[in-house]
C-alpha cells in the first residue's frame, strides 16, 4: 500500500511545473484571451520535446508509454497555471483510445504525430455538444452511437462558440462519414467511448485540483497583504473560515482524483464509480473555492485587470465539462443503488 507518487513522478512534475512557471505565466493566459488563435505552438512543441504530449503514447510509436497516474500530476500543474491547450483531449483521451481501440493502420498513422507534437487531437463523444480546440486540431475522434471515427481536421466544418473563459476555444461541428475512418464499432466502441469519457472526466478533475490550489494560494497571498480596519483582512475569523472551507474541499477531493487515476491505470472493476466520484468532488471543490476566492478578493477580483478571473472562469467551464457534479453524483447513485 502506497498512496503517493514516486520520486520520479514528482521530479517530472516539478520539471513541468517549472516549465509552466516560465512559459505560461498569467500574461500568457491573458494573451490567449486576446489573440485570435490563442494557442502557442512553441510551448506545445517544447512539451512534446519533454515527453509530456507523448506521455500516454506507447514507446513503439515514439511516446513514453506511461499511464494515467503518471499523467495526473502533470495535468494538475496545467490546471494550476491555467495552461490553455488541449492536453486533456490529445494526451489524456485520444492517445490512449487509439492505442487501445484503433486498428494498427490508424494507430500508426496518428500516434507518432501525437508523440512528436505534430498532431493535435480533439474529441467529441455523444452528449458532448461542443469540441475543444478544433481550430488547431489535426485530428478529430468522434462518436456516433456505437461507432467511433477518426476524421482529419480538414473534413470537419466548425462554428466557433464563445465561452465565458476567453482562453477556451469551443466549436460546434459537422462532418460526413464519407470523410471518416472507422476506429471501432459495436459493444467495443461503446466501451471505448465510456473509457474515453472516464479519462476525460478524470483528467479534467486533475486540472480542477490545480486550479483550486492556485485560487487558494492567490487568495491567501491577497488577504495576508490587504489591510482594512488597520489589520490584514486575513486576520478576520470570517475570512479564515472561508479559506479553511476551501482548503477542506480540496483536501478531500484530491485523494479521490488520485484514486480515479489509479483505477484507470489498473483496470479497476469500479472505475466508473471512482472517476465519477473524482469529478464530482473536484467540480464541487472548484466551485466552492472560486466563490470563496472572489468573495475574499472583493472588488479587485471582480475586474479583468486582476488575474483571478482567468482561474474563476476556467473553473466554471471545467466544472461543467465532462459531466458536472450533479451528473456524476447521479452516476454514482446508479452504480451504488441499482446494482
Amino acid at each position, binding site marked *: 500500500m502506497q498512496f503517493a507518487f514516486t520520486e520520479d513522478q514528482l521530479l517530472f512534475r516539478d520539471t513541468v511545473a517549472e516549465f509552466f512557471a516560465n512559459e505560461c505565466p498569467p500574461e500568457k493566459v491573458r494573451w490567449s484571451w486576446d489573440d485570435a488563435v490563442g494557442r502557442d505552438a512553441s510551448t506545445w512543441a517544447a512539451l512534446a520535446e519533454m515527453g509530456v504530449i507523448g506521455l500516454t503514447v506507447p514507446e513503439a510509436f515514439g511516446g513514453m508509454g506511461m499511464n494515467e497516474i503518471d499523467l495526473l500530476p502533470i495535468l494538475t500543474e496545467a490546471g494550476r497555471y491555467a495552461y490553455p491547450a488541449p492536453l486533456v483531449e490529445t494526451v489524456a483521451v485520444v492517445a490512449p483510445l487509439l492505442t487501445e481501440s484503433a486498428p494498427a493502420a490508424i494507430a500508426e498513422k496518428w500516434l507518432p504525430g501525437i508523440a512528436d507534437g505534430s498532431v493535435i487531437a480533439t474529441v467529441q463523444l455523444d*452528449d458532448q455538444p461542443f469540441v475543444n480546440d478544433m481550430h488547431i486540431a489535426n485530428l478529430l475522434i468522434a462518436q456516433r452511437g456505437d461507432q467511433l471515427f477518426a476524421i482529419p481536421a480538414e473534413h470537419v466544418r466548425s*462554428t466557433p*462558440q*464563445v465561452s465565458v473563459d476567453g482562453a477556451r476555444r469551443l466549436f460546434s461541428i459537422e462532418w460526413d462519414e464519407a470523410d471518416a475512418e472507422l476506429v471501432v464499432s459495436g459493444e467495443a466502441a461503446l466501451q471505448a467511448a465510456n473509457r474515453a469519457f472516464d479519462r476525460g472526466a478524470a483528467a479534467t478533475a486533475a486540472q480542477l485540483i490545480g486550479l483550486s490550489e492556485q485560487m487558494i494560494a492567490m487568495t491567501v497571498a491577497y488577504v495576508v497583504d490587504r489591510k482594512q*480596519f488597520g489589520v490584514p483582512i486575513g486576520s478576520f475569523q470570517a475570512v479564515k473560515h472561508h479559506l479553511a472551507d476551501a482548503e477542506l474541499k480540496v483536501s478531500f477531493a484530491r485523494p479521490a482524483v488520485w484514486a480515479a487515476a489509479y483505477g484507470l491505470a489498473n483496470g479497476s472493476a469500479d472505475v466508473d464509480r471512482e472517476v465519477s466520484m473524482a469529478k464530482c468532488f473536484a467540480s464541487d471543490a472548484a466551485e466552492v473555492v472560486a466563490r470563496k476566492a472572489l468573495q475574499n478578493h*472583493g*472588488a479587485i477580483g471582480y475586474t*479583468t485587470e486582476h488575474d483571478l478571473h482567468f482561474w474563476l472562469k476556467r473553473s*466554471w467551464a471545467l466544472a461543467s*465539462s465532462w459531466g458536472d457534479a450533479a451528473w456524476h453524483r447521479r452516476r454514482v447513485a446508479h452504480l451504488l443503488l441499482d446494482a
Partner: protein
Amino acid sequence: MDLTFTPAEEAFRAEAREWLEANVPVGLPSGDTAEGFALHVEWEKKLFEARWSVVSWPEEFGGRGASLWEWLIFEEEYYRVGGPQRVTQNGIFLLAPTIFEFGTDEQKERFLPRMAAADDLWCQGWSEPDAGSDLAGIKSRAARDDERGGWVINGQKTWTTRGAFCNWVFGLFRTDPEAARHSGMTYLLVPLDAPGVTVRGVERLDGDEGFAEVFFDDVFVSDDLVLGGVNEGWGVAMATASSERGLTLRSPGRFCAAADRLVDLWKRQAAAGEYPERIDSLRSDVAQSWMEAEAYRLATLVDVTGLVKGVSQGARSSLTKIYWSELDVKLNETALRLLGPAAELIETSPDAVDGGAWMKGFEFALSGPIYAGTNEIQRNVVAERVLGLPRK
C-alpha cells in the same frame, strides 16, 4: 392582514402595465458599455417623458407622488415585461433619497428634475484603493478654499460603477484630517467634467467596462455642492448606504421576474426533451429558487407595511441585503446547472441559450455579496445590531 390592492392601486397597475408592454425595449445590450449606456439613457428619457422614471417622487420633481405600494407595483410590472436594469439607479435610488432628506431646496430643484430626466447621470464615489469594506478609511481630501467659497479635492475613488459614462459623482471626502475616523468627512457632489477630474474605465468580470477609477487633482467644488453639513458626511452617507442595502435598490419585482424566467427555462428545457435526467433532478432547486424570490417579495410586504406606518427597517436592512444578494447568485446558478455544458456560452456565442443571459446574470450576481458592504460586514451588523452581540 390584507394582501389585496385597492382599486386605485390596481388602476395604477393597469396603466403602468399597458404603457410598459407597449414601450419596454426588447434586447437592449448591456448598459455597462459605452454604446449600451447611450441606448439605455435614451430608454430612460422615454420613461421620464411618460412620467414613469421616478414614480414615487413628488410631481414637481418629475414623479407621480406614488405610494410605496404603487412603487412596488410599478417595479413588479417593469420587470415582469422584461424592463432592463436602470442605469440611473445610483442616482434615483441612492442619491435622491439622500437629497430628499438632507438637501437644500435649491439642491432639490437643481438636481432632482435633471436626475429624473436622465439629463444628469450619477455615479457613486465611495471606495478608495485602501478603503473598501472599511469605508471610514477613506483618504481623499477636500481642503477649504475660503477665497473661492468652496473645496479643493485631491485623491482617488475606485470601483465607481458606470463612472466612465456618467457626468456627476457623489461621495465622501475628508475635510478635517485631524478628526477621528468616522468624523471630519463631508458628502460632496462633483461634476465629472470639472477641471482636474480624470476618469479611467475598468473592465468588470463580465467584460463590460462597468467600473471606473476617478482621480481628483485640485478639483474645485463650490459650497452649494456640499450635501448635508460640513464634516457631517458620515451620517449622510449612512443614509445612502441604508438605501443601498434595503429595498429601494432591489425591489422584489426583479427577482420574482427572474424566478419566473427560471421556471420558464425549466419548462422549455423539459419540453425539448434533451437530458431529461438533468432537467428532472433540478426540479427541487428550481422550486427552491422560485420560493426564495417569493419569500423576498413577502418579506418586503411586511417591511413596507412597517415603513408606511413609519417603522424603519434599521439594521434589519442588512438581513435584506444578505438575502437578495445570495438569492440572486443561487437563482442564476440553478439556471446554469439546467444548461449543463452549454452554461459556459456567453452572449456572442451562436448556441447560447437566452443570449447568454444566465451566465451574465450569474457574473453580475457575484458582485452582490461584495458591494454595498460585504456580506461578512452585514452579518456582523445583524449579529451586533439586530441580535445584540458584543462588538468586541
